[in-house]
């Protein structure tokens, strides 16, 4: 079998090695998985292939030998390479057809030939048995829809080598299966497929070969059929941390701390402002639930089904269109964020870069943020108290480096997330926790710590609400799991039903509205 890709590459960012002579070989007509912990260098390696990042040293052959120093996106595309990126790469204000055309615009008589772009995209979608509206504004689509559209666009152009960087992170279980089947079909047609994923069972299911990266080096090249445990060991270079179980069930008569009744929230996707009249994902309609002291309740669902609206309404960032929210029995429906926080609400934001941290401020400032009451003496800030608080927060979740004067931006993603969790859960008198995607993009060790901290909060009597797209996370944390679909609760599993063998399938079905 001929090789579609042969490469070695080294790359430094500042004084940090992202890749140290990392190696990757992909045979034509196969599905090849690349795995590794956060920051292992997976994305960097593949961006080098796609020409988006320039390697410092190495060799690259995509069918033919490429000059690494002059390699670029256009050159890679010309060689038949396509890449679906880890973070969506659609321009939200353009239509899907315009996005598809970007970079190779069809032109007629000096003007853009949008009709041709539309036709091309529709044809590509039909070939993959997907339906999409070429005139829809990308930003008005849900994240899942955007990703499907991106896959269609890229697959249409990638003749030789198709790269997908964590394409399944946002998909429901059923959708994942369909995507994997599609990838097999594409490989069957002779195009090599490179797949990055953190879900080792997926990898085991679909991949013909696996390359394992650790700290920028290729540490293993495995063939099909290797046990998942073996792969995990190669990834972390030792035994992977165990996944925990939910904390002990609170007594049945524990007080209801957080209660949501008939909550409705307008759509936040911004579709309306991007293009008036464009289809919108729909916001939140009529959601009711309650969380008791000591209880951990999970909200599962495919991204864009109202999770964001739910979280922001509960913490007070967006107004409720209808319904009621109470905290410890007090009506908080129209209370300010500050009032809710004063009443003991903690919030681990979904998007740490946006709602969680001020990236250019120091770690100490970020700890102070939201805990100003604890450090203020009149108008003055008590700087010794700030330092103590910050050091305590850093120690609490083992944030590294434990330097309060560092800019938050200089922390790795996982450590940033630990910082947010430490700040929020370390406040005095936490009565309720809203944790949105608390471990997204965070590696196994940090994930374990964050989960432990959430369990500890529940054990200490807080009501914990976890919103996550990751079912494994919810199984590891929650007493009850409800599924949000199209802005409403599609179903809920608790107790034995949640532990049953078919729980995953049931939740997955609810997530895609197939129940």
């Amino acid at each position, binding site marked *: 079998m001929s090789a579609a890709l042969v490469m070695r590459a080294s790359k430094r960012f500042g004084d940090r090695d992202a890749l140290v002579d990392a190696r990757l070989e992909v045979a034509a007509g196969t599905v090849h998985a690349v795995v590794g912990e956060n920051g292992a260098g997976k994305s960097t390696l593949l961006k080098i292939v796609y020409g988006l990042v320039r390697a410092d040293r190495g060799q690259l052959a995509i069918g033919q030998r490429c000059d690494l120093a002059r390699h670029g996106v256009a050159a890679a595309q010309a060689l038949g390479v396509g890449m679906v990126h880890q973070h969506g790469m*659609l*321009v*939200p204000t*353009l239509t899907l057809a315009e996005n598809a055309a*970007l970079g190779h615009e069809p032109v007629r008589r000096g003007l*853009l030939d949008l009709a041709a772009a539309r036709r091309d995209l529709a044809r590509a979608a039909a070939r993959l048995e997907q339906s999409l509206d070429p005139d829809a504004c990308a930003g008005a689509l849900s994240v899942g829809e955007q990703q499907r559209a991106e896959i269609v666009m890229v697959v249409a152009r990638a003749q030789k080598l198709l790269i997908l960087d964590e394409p399944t992170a946002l998909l429901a279980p059923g959708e994942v299966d369909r995507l994997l089947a599609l990838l097999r079909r594409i490989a069957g047609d002779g195009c090599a497929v490179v797949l990055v994923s953190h879900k080792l069972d997926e990898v085991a299911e679909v991949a013909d070969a696996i390359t394992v990266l650790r700290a920028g080096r290729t540490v293993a090249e495995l063939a099909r059929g290797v046990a998942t445990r073996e792969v995990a060991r190669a990834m972390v270079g030792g035994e992977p941390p165990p996944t925990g179980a939910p904390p002990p069930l609170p007594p049945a008569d524990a007080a209801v701390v957080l209660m949501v009744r008939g909550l409705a929230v307008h759509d936040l996707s911004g579709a309306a402002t991007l293009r008036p009249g464009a289809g919108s994902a729909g916001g939140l309609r009529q959601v009711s639930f309650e969380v008791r002291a000591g209880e951990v309740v999970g909200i599962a669902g495919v991204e864009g089904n109202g999770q964001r609206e739910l979280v922001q309404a509960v913490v007070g960032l967006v107004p409720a269109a209808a319904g009621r929210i109470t905290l410890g029995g007090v009506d908080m429906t129209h209370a300010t964020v500050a009032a809710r926080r004063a009443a003991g609400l903690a919030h681990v934001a979904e998007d740490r870069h946006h709602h969680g941290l001020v990236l250019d401020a120091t770690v100490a400032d970020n700890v102070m943020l939201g805990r100003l009451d604890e450090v203020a003496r009149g108008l003055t800030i008590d700087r010794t108290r700030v330092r103590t608080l910050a050091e305590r927060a850093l120690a609490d979740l083992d944030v590294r480096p434990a330097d309060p004067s560092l800019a938050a931006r200089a922390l790795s993603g996982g450590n940033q997330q630990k910082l947010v969790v430490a700040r929020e859960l370390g406040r005095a008198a936490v009565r309720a926790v809203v944790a949105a995607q608390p471990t997204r993009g965070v590696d196994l060790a940090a994930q374990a710590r964050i989960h432990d901290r959430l369990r500890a909060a529940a054990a200490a009597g807080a009501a914990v609400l976890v919103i996550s797209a990751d079912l494994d996370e919810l199984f590891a944390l929650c007493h009850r799991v409800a599924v949000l679909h199209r802005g409403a609760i599609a179903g809920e599993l608790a107790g034995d039903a949640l532990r049953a063998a078919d729980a995953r399938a049931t939740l997955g079905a609810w997530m895609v509205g197939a129940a």
Partner: protein
Amino acid sequence: MMDAVAAVVAFVAALATVTFVEMVVRITVPYLLAALGGAITERAGLVDLALEAKLLFGAFTAAAIAHDTGSIALAIAGAAVAGAAVGAVQALWAIRLGADQIVTGVALNLAAYGLTRYLLQVMYGQGSNSPRIDGIGAKVWSSPLTWLALVLTAVAIVMIARTRLGLRVRAVGERPDATAAAGVSVAGTRLAAVLVGSAIAGVGGAQLSLVVNGFVAEMSSGRGYVALAAVIMGGWRPAWVALVCLGFGAAEAVQVRMQSAGTGLPPELVRLLPYLLALVLLATLRGRGRAPAALGRGA
């Protein structure tokens, strides 16, 4: 009361004349071209606070060339080049050097005020105006700038909406990372947008000096800032921006007519009409448009 209403009706009716339309056109052209140029630059993600500098250098260059060659066409072309030259500095600073775009714009305006005066001194030995030139004068329908402005408006609208460069400009101002991932050069697209936009703004400057047959120091008189306001009020969409500029031009023309008609209102306050109108609109019409997401964020 009825008298007042009748007076207002009569005043408005009196506006519907060819000369009023001509006045609106003359006043609008510099706003229009500066704002269209600004819209293109900003759509590519660069804050364009340097419109004042582009107008002023455009006006100066047009006057200098008209003085030396007597050719209006060359003068206009020179104004475009002068605008583009300011844009080139702006692009170098913002794209290559990663400089703060607001600071760059403020500094370029400062430089324009000083440098045009300085050049007047050096070239003509006088710091406040150029020698008299044979410009275009007050004529409107036979002025090449009137028609050029019309053509450039159409060009700007079509360019943004319907050309390859326009699509790339729209993309790069919104998601430069995604644009790069699509194989488009972010820096190249931005440079092209800034140069085109700045050249258009420079032509707007030519209107200032050619209509009054000479360059006068600081004759842009804050028009570049008003043009930037128009860019924002027009939601960064060229057609809307053009309409807003027309509104500005009309408001200013009404102000002029009100003074001539003798309303009895103090001229100091009548003069503020366009500004008050803009302020009220800004406060009431909660921004219709969205700023390009990558605006001001550097490369």
